[in-house]
C-alpha cells in the first residue's frame, strides 16, 4: 500500500493521481486541453471568479443543502445514526448542477458560445441545458438511443430548456457512446465549443475540475456534521458510477484518516452474473475516455456493456481519483445490487418521506449495511445525491405497475 502524505495534493502537474488519470487523447485535443487547463488554473485562484461561483451556488442552486438526521430510518435499521447530505434539494434535483454551474462560468470566461455535453440518465444533460439557458449559450446534448428511450421525461426537459438532444446509435447506444460522440464533436468544433463533462472522468483537467466544483458537498457536510453532532462521522458513503458525487463528498474527508470511506458501485444483478457496472470492485486498470483508470473490458481489451437499474451508474469506467484512493487503501469500493438499491429506495420513502434517485439509493443501501454493523452512537453520513422523481416510471415498470 502506498503511503500518501496529503490526499489534497493531487493530481500532479501531469494530471495524474498516482498512476491513474493523465491525458490519453488524440493529438488534436492536446492543445484545447492545454488551453482549458491554463484557463481553469487561472480562474480557480481568481477571487472574482470564486465570488461569482459562490453567488450562483447560493442564489441559483440553493446552497448550502442541509445535512439531515434520518431518525426513523436509523431506528428502523437499529444501528448507528444515519445522516443524509441532501443534494436532492438542489435546483434540478441533483449534485450535477454544482459542476455545470462552474464549468459554464469557465466556458463564458473562455469566450465559448456553444456548450456540448454527454448524458446517461439525463441528469447531467438537464443540468447542462439549464446553465446554458441561463447564460444564453447554445447547447447540444449527446445521449445514447437506448437511454433516450428509458429517460423520456429528461429528454423533454432538455428540449424545454432549449437544448438539442442528439441520439447516439453507435456501440451500446448508452452513456459511454454518448461520451465518444461528444468527444468527436469537440475535436471538430474546438474553436467555439466548450465540452462540459458530467463526471470526474475524461482527460485532465476534467477529473480535477469536476471534483473541485463538487467538493463543496463534502466541505459543507463536514462543517454541518461537526456543528450538529460535535464530531466527524465514523464512516461516509456515496454511490459511484463515474464518481462525481462520491468524490464531491469524500474529498474534504480524505485527510481525516479516522473517517472510513466506502463507495457503493452498481452490482446490478450481482457481480458474479457479469451483469453489473462495478468497475473498481470487478475491473482492471486500463485506458478509457482519456484517462487511465479501472475499466470493465473483456480479454481482448474491448469495453463491455454494463448493467444497472440506474442509468446514471451504468458506466464501464470510473474517475481516476477513485482508482487512486482504492489502490492507496484510503477508500473501499463495494457492490450494491439492483434489488438492494430498490429495497433501500422503498425503505427511505416510507420511513422518511424522501424519494431518492435510484443512483443515490445505492448509497442509502450501503449506509443501512454500515449502520447495522456499528453501535448506536456511531455516525454514518451518506450522500443523497439526487431525487427520485425521474425514476418513478422505471420503478413502476419493474414492479409490474402500469401508470
Amino acid at each position: 500500500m502506498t503511503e500518501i502524505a496529503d490526499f489534497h495534493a493531487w493530481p500532479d502537474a501531469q494530471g495524474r493521481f498516482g498512476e491513474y488519470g493523465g491525458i490519453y487523447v488524440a493529438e488534436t485535443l492536446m492543445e484545447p486541453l492545454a488551453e482549458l487547463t491554463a484557463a481553469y488554473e487561472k480562474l480557480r485562484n481568481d477571487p472574482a471568479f470564486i465570488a461569482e461561483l459562490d453567488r450562483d451556488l447560493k442564489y441559483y442552486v440553493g446552497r448550502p443543502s442541509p445535512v439531515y438526521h434520518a431518525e426513523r430510518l436509523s431506528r428502523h435499521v437499529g444501528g448507528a445514526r444515519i445522516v443524509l447530505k441532501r443534494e436532492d434539494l438542489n435546483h434540478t434535483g441533483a449534485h450535477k448542477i454544482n459542476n455545470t454551474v462552474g464549468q459554464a462560468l469557465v466556458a463564458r470566461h473562455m469566450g465559448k458560445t456553444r456548450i456540448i455535453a454527454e448524458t446517461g440518465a439525463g441528469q447531467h444533460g438537464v443540468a447542462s441545458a439549464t446553465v446554458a439557458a441561463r447564460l444564453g449559450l447554445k447547447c447540444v446534448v449527446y445521449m445514447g438511443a437506448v437511454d433516450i428511450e428509458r429517460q423520456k421525461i429528461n429528454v423533454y426537459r432538455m428540449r424545454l430548456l432549449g437544448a438539442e438532444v442528439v441520439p447516439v446509435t453507435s456501440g451500446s447506444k448508452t452513456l459511454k457512446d454518448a461520451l465518444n460522440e461528444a468527444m468527436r464533436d469537440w475535436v471538430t468544433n474546438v474553436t467555439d465549443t466548450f465540452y462540459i463533462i458530467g463526471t470526474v472522468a475524461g482527460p485532465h483537467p476534467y477529473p480535477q475540475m469536476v471534483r473541485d466544483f463538487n467538493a463543496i458537498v463534502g466541505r459543507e457536510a463536514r462543517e454541518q456534521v461537526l456543528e450538529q453532532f460535535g464530531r466527524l462521522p465514523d464512516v461516509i458513503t456515496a454511490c459511484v458510477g463515474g464518481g462525481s458525487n462520491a468524490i464531491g463528498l469524500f474529498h474534504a474527508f480524505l485527510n481525516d484518516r479516522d473517517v472510513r470511506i466506502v463507495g457503493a458501485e452498481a452490482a446490478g444483478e450481482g457481480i458474479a452474473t457479469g451483469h453489473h457496472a462495478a468497475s473498481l470492485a470487478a475491473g482492471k486498470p486500463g485506458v478509457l475516455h482519456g484517462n487511465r483508470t479501472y475499466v470493465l473490458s473483456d480479454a481482448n481489451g474491448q469495453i463491455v456493456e454494463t448493467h444497472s437499474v440506474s442509468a446514471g451508474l451504468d458506466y464501464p469506467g470510473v474517475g481516476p481519483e477513485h482508482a487512486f484512493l482504492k489502490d492507496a487503501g484510503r477508500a473501499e469500493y463495494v457492490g450494491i445490487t439492483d434489488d438492494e438499491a430498490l429495497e433501500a429506495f422503498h425503505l427511505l420513502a416510507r420511513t422518511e418521506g424522501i424519494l431518492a434517485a435510484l443512483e443515490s439509493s445505492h448509497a442509502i443501501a450501503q449506509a443501512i449495511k454500515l449502520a447495522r454493523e456499528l453501535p448506536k452512537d456511531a455516525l454514518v453520513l451518506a450522500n443523497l445525491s439526487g431525487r427520485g422523481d425521474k425514476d418513478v416510471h422505471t420503478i413502476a415498470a419493474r414492479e409490474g405497475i402500469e401508470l
Partner: protein
Amino acid sequence: MSRIERRFAALKSAGRTGLVPFVTAGDPSPDGMVALLHGLVAAGADLIELGVPFSDPMADGPVIQHASERALAKGVGLANVLAWVAAFRETDAETPIVLMGYLNPIEMYGYAAFAEDAVEAGVDGVLMVDCPLEESHVLEPLRQAGLAQILLASPTTAEGRLARLCEAASGFLYYVSFAGITGAAQLSTGDIAERVAGIRARSKAPVAVGFGVRDAASARAIGEFADAVVIGSALVDRLSGAASAEDAVGRARDFLAPIRAALDAR
C-alpha cells in the same frame, strides 16, 4: 535500418510519394484479410496501416467506427490481427505494417507480451490514437523491442509541442490535416502545404499526411508536399459492401489504382 526506414529511403531515391492505405483488421471479412493485405500491395501500397478494432474509437468517424463494430461482431481480437500479419509476412518481407488503434487492447494483452508477439509477427510500428507523446512512457517496452511509435501532429499542435514531436518522431510522423475525426470534410490543401513543409524541414522522420484524402485529386494535391499520403475512410467505405474476399481485393485495386497513378504522375 528498419523496414519503415528502408521503404521511405527507397521512395525518396526514386522520387516517389508513398501510398499508405488504411484498412480495419477483419473487415470486410476475417477470412479474406491476408489476401486483402497482399491486394493492397499489388494495388500500389508502400506501407499498410492496419486498424485494430476497438469498442470505443473516440477519434474515428462513422465509417471506421462501423468497420470496427463489424469486425468486433465477428470476434476479431489483437491475437487475430497478429496472426494475419504473420501470415502476410510469409510471402512479403518488405512492406511495412503499422498497427493503428487505441491503448486498451494492448493494455489488456500486456505491453511486454504484445511487444514480443508483434515483433515476432512482423509488425513494424504502432500508432496509438489515444497515446500522445506525454503518456508514451507506457509504450517503452514496444520501443525497446524495436517497434516504431508513430506520432501524430495536427493543425492545433502548438509550436513547442511540435518541436518535441519532430524530435521524438520515429518511423514517420503522421500529420492530421485538419482538426476533426477520420473521414470528415474536404481538404483545402493550400492551407496545409506550408505547415507540412515546415514540419518536414524539422522532423527527424518522413511526414505522411492523412485525414480527408479520398480520391486521386486530393491524393495528388497532398502528394505535392508530403512524403506519403494516407487514405483510410474512403477505402474502408469502398470495401464495406464487398460480397467476397476476391471482391474486396478487386475493389481495393480499382480504388487505389487511379490514386497510385496520380501520385506517380507528378
